[in-house]
């Protein structure tokens, strides 16, 4: 390459080839729409797609042939994993952010209407789910594709517990975490001793089993119609305008005006506290032996066994902890929605949570919180977008994996100050 000027021929050829492939690939499915036993043609859509692919390929090719593009490509291929060790005395630049966010979270319900409140609650539920899956996928490196099953166990735990045992929100909350963890243990113990990829498909199957059982067992779970879930109470006080069975409702007891949002306010407060607790626990976990063991297992299982770590039990602990977090989230979801049915627990839901973890950066806590809000709140606000949501999630996952397998936010490891070692 003697001349510095851009060679335009190669990008043009690339673009032509890509256009041809796009025509064959997209042509039939996009262009010929089945309509009963006949069909109609949609050639303009095909033209748009092929045009977009050709333009995209042309620009990409042009970029990769330029000097800047080549450098970028080299960085992409050779560039380290994006992991760095921080100096021991390091303090994060984002320290000031935490009190600010907390303040915003406390002030928020005073200004928000019901709609905004419910959207944020949903966002927080996904934060919880994202944090739980982040332990499993990000820290321990186990791909759990049936995560939604544990979420369903929590949600149906509340509904069934109320229906058959008369349990309420507060008693089910810890029980759901326990039950989900137990289910995780039963599933994980035999499977976790095998090659990692099998776990993905077994959990995928498990998620479907749970959903199908919920759907088909009409007499027990109500089938596709679902079940109703009781509203939560605070020390036995109800949030309705009138309490059942002659009790005193919350607003009368405290002598405040009735507010129809009270139920959601209550869920918001408890959920926020739970999320903060889980955030704290997760922050501690990565500094604890168990967190280190998870990461070590992700790096090299054989070396871990040679260090005396029981790889099955260490993985199982991550799997169970993640499952119990999903169980908690399920209870919140059920009481927030007021009823549960199997359509909330499809594979798509698992994929959405996985997308949160992937976008947020596997192993990064702050990233997961941001991603959870981005992926759940944004589509709520942009309704017209809804059809393309799944498509975007899919593209996001593929692009993130190609561009940066560890996610958007650079992973930083803790440094330690030097200790007196006194070696021989």
């Amino acid at each position, binding site marked *: 390459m003697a001349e510095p000027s851009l060679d335009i021929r190669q990008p043009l050829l690339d673009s032509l080839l890509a256009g041809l492939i796009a025509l064959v690939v997209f042509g039939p499915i996009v262009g010929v729409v089945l309509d009963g036993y*006949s069909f109609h043609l949609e050639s303009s859509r095909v033209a748009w797609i092929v045009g977009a692919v050709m333009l995209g390929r042309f620009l990409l090719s042009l970029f990769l042939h330029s000097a800047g593009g080549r450098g970028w490509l080299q960085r992409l291929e050779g560039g380290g994993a994006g992991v760095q060790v921080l100096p021991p005395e390091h303090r994060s630049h984002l320290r000031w952010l935490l009190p600010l966010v907390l303040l915003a979270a406390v002030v928020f319900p005073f200004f928000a209407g019901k709609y905004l409140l419910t959207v944020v609650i949903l966002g927080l539920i996904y934060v919880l789910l994202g944090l739980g899956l982040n332990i499993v996928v990000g820290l321990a490196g186990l791909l759990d594709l049936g995560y939604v099953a544990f979420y369903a166990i929590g949600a149906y735990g509340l509904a069934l517990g109320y229906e058959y045992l008369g349990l309420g929100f507060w008693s089910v909350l810890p029980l759901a975490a326990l039950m989900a963890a137990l289910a995780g243990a039963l599933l994980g113990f*035999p499977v976790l001793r095998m090659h990692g990829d099998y776990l993905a498909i077994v959990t995928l*199957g498990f998620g479907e089993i749970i959903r*199908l059982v919920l759907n088909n067992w009409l007499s027990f779970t109500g089938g596709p119609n679902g079940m109703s879930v009781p509203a939560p109470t605070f020390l036995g006080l109800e949030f309705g305008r009138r309490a059942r069975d002659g009790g005193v409702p919350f607003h009368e007891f405290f002598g405040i005006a009735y507010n129809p949002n009270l139920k959601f306010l209550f869920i918001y407060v408890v959920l926020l506290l739970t999320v903060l607790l889980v955030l704290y626990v997760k922050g501690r976990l990565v500094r604890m032996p168990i967190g280190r063991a998870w990461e070590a297992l992700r790096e090299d299982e054989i070396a871990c066994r040679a260090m005396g770590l029981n790889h099955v039990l260490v993985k199982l602990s991550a799997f169970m902890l993640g499952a119990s977090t999903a169980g908690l989230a399920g209870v919140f979801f059920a009481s927030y929605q007021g009823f549960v049915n199997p359509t909330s627990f499809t594979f798509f839901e698992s*994929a959405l949570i*996985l997308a949160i973890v992937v976008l947020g950066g596997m192993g990064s806590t702050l990233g997961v919180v941001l991603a959870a809000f981005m992926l759940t709140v944004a589509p709520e606000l942009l309704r017209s977008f809804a059809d393309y949501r799944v498509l975007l999630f*899919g593209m996001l996952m593929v692009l993130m994996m190609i561009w940066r397998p560890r996610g958007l936010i650079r992973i930083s490891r803790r440094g330690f100050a030097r200790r007196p070692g006194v070696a021989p």
Partner: protein
Amino acid sequence: MDGIFLQQMVNGLTLGSVYGLIAIGYTMVYGIIGMINFAHGEVYMISAYLSAIGLALLASFGLESFPLLIFGTLLFTVCVTGLYGWVIERIAYRPLRNSTRLAPLISAIGISLILQNYVQISQGARQQGIPTLLDGAFRLPIGEGFLQISYTKVFILVAAFAGMAALTWVIRCTRLGRMCRATQQDRKMAQILGIDTDRVISWVFVIGAAMAALAGLLITLNYGTFDFYAGFVIGIKAFTAAVLGGIGSLPGAMLGGLILGVAEAQFSGIVNTDYKDVFSFSLLVLILIFRPQGLLGRPQVAKV
């Protein structure tokens, strides 16, 4: 032997032979690059749409004889689906060849979501279908009733086994097959010996997709209906078949498919149709726990 048992046996064998065809895609890809191609079920779903589109297009050109119609559709579906396999590998897996173990799996999930949603957007969420092309059945008297074997089922069995035989011939006797086997044994060594392993891997994806395309056409002929979500369940079942037969083994995939198909048909005949998917998934979990190497696979020894 009662009639229901035999009838379900026939249904199970046809269904199973199709599972086997899809399982080949899983087993070959796993054998050669050691990853589970989660998007394979979606490739099958695409091929079901393509075969319906191909039939509709050919019919609109005035083609009416069954053999020509089927042959034309098969050619069309196999070629386009094969190209899908190639494109998926090129975009989503090849850039991740030297990445972490989790990356290609997540990327595969992404592709699977993309394909589902893309078909849903362009073809609509409603169920699609094709008219019955091959009417009639063999009727064999058994006891008081009849054992009914429709011509479609016979055609499916014959076509599935012909596809299997063709694939076996390709892998055993051709240059490409030799290169595939060499790459499967030791990718680095094959590369040193001058085999373009990237191209071999691409071919494996194309072959897997082509087999899925045959399966897509056959299932569409049998059931007549499909939707954009169809790939998910069949994908897991075909994977179950691949694991049951021993992942990485071609005869294993076919055997596993047949066993799974028969077991599932008998289960829905004897016990309950609602829970037949639960039954298959539970079978997958149980096999992985008790015999992860499958029927014809070899136990793996971890390299230290």
